[in-house]
């Protein structure tokens, strides 16, 4: 680009001085003051004003982030102790307590959701990445995934409620997991497709040239090479699912007890960190509100760590 321009534009070189005639100043009617950058000119002033306005607005947009983090550390950090991880939620008016069952519930439901959405998402992505770019069916799948990305999370809960809770007559960890899996699916499909498409064409061609079937190529070349990118997508999806509240409100509901009370059973109401924060934030008891802040701190840490792991993976993705 730059070298091309240089080739097109003839280098400006000072020609030989005019041998005859008086020296004529070619810049005689140019007012040099007008070419200088001056704050008295409106266009310069507008420029400066807008630049400062935009900088200030960007900084202002970051204030909530710092405020949230500081509040979490201040109000959540005070009560953070080992107890909150091992004890059960307190009854109203009761002191102490924790949310061990909610952490466990969140982990179990996110794991369930991952179990459903990872195979579904990756295989769909394999199909999309193998399809021709102009294929209308692949376009439809991609469009569906994009629509699902902006899908209100509460409607995933409504769906799981209609399919599982109404049919099997009860709130359960399974229904919560299914609702979360719907929200994880589009992220996994779209990032995994990108990652698989980024695998250098040489590697794919080499495998096919060796006589590998498309399936062998997928399993032995494409998926291992694209794995960092796919894992990034999975981590982002998990981070999003862990923080979701709306789809769990009326699928997993809440529970004040351990999930494995009386045998390990996924078909009973299950606590989760996000729903605990929602429930406790609205209570008129200081102890519960404090616990909500601690739970929020734990949840944000969980989500951020998952996000960071995902970003660490994305740096190892091989680009063409």
């Amino acid at each position, binding site marked *: 680009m730059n070298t091309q321009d240089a080739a097109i534009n003839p280098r400006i070189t000072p020609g030989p001085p005019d041998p005859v005639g008086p020296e004529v100043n070619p810049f005689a009617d140019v007012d040099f003051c007008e070419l200088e950058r001056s704050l008295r000119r409106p266009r310069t002033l507008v420029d400066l004003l807008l630049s400062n306005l935009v900088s200030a607005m*960007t900084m202002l947009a970051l204030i909530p982030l710092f405020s949230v983090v500081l509040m979490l550390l201040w109000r959540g950090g005070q009560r953070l102790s080992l107890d909150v991880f091992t004890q059960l939620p307190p009854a109203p008016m009761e002191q102490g307590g924790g949310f061990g069952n909610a952490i466990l519930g969140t982990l179990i439901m996110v794991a369930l959701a991952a179990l459903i959405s990872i195979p579904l998402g990756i295989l769909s992505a394999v199909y999309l990445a193998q399809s021709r770019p102009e294929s209308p069916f692949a376009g439809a799948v991609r469009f569906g995934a994009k629509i699902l990305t902006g899908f209100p999370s509460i409607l995933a809960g*409504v*769906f799981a409620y209609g399919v599982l809770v109404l049919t099997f007559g009860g709130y359960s960890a399974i229904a919560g997991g299914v609702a979360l899996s719907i929200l994880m699916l589009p992220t996994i499909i779209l990032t995994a497709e990108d990652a698989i498409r980024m695998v250098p064409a040489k590697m794919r061609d080499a495998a096919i040239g060796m006589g590998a*079937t498309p399936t062998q190529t997928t399993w032995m070349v494409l998926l291992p090479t694209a794995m960092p990118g796919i894992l990034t997508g999975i981590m982002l999806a998990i981070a999003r699912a862990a923080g979701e509240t709306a789809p769990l409100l009326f699928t997993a509901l809440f529970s004040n007890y351990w999930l494995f009370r009386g045998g390990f059973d996924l078909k009973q109401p299950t606590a989760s960190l*996000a729903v605990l924060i929602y429930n406790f934030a609205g209570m008129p008891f200081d102890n519960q509100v404090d616990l909500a802040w601690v739970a929020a701190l734990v949840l944000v840490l969980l989500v951020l760590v998952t996000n960071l792991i995902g970003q660490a993976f994305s740096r190892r993705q091989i680009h063409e």
Partner: protein
Amino acid sequence: MSDINQISRPPTHSQQVVDTAFRWLCCGFACLSVLMVALIMLEIAKDAVPAIRQYGPGFLAGTTWDPNTGQFGILPEIWGTLYTSFLALLIGTSFGVAAAIFLSEGFLAQAVFQILKAFGLQFHPVLGKLPDRAEVLLKNLIELLAAIPSVVYGLWGLFVIIPLIRPACNWLNLKLGWIPLFGTTLTGPGVLPAVIVLAIMILPTITAISRNALVSVPPKLRMAAYGMGATRWETILAVILPTAARGIAGAVILAFGRALGETMALAMLVGNANRISVSLFSPANTLAALLANNFPEAAKKDVGVLMYAALVLLAITLFVNIIGSIILQKASAGQEGGK
């Protein structure tokens, strides 16, 4: 030659069978993912049918919600959903696009470079990279706003935003109460705190997509504008923003879809009051918050009504999302043609 034959050979029969089966499996799973959207719509519509038969379109215009008398209407919720989302979009767009311009036009990199230059450090092996690093860091910080769960924003709004803005709101009501916008006092949860938090939540979406649109404006256009003597802002306002307008419009519409469907922050901050008011300080309700509050303790006979409300929410968000996606798709297609 024999070595090559050992490594490369045609697939055996069983490998071909596995291959065909796997390809069909992938195709089937892809079908399943796209069917998921249809399945969700069908399921919600199916459960809503009894309520649609019973209440008909009058449900959309009714203003009472009373399970005891069996009277249901969601006009206040529809109004609240659109009103809060629209206001949040106004705030979110202005800040989001400003941040996108700030992050794409090299303002920060230039500022950091100037500082380094003042100390004569602009070519330092480590510090010299700082201008680019600072911009990436700021972009990541803005994206971090999106990573915080909405229920945490709700908690923060409840205990930080509401106490913070309440004195100012009540002062406005006292002095300017004749303006409908300030017509009531802020007693606790209300429209304004919900709008502020909602705006913060959609800002990262707007910034990320708008920044992509701004960055992919062909550099030639920028160079041409500068070459003609335009100032930086003349270039931005007259050349770059119009070129990226489609991408930014797509971002705004997608963010609108997000705002319409956002549940937790609103359920915690909007006040859940069944009323229609233009006042920024009055409590209100939204469709998503209505679902979140009523589903957990819904009686069997009321589930149909809630499904009807869910169907309305689904229709509104789906419509907005599809339009946003189509605009973005056209924007990126147009840009590829322009290069």
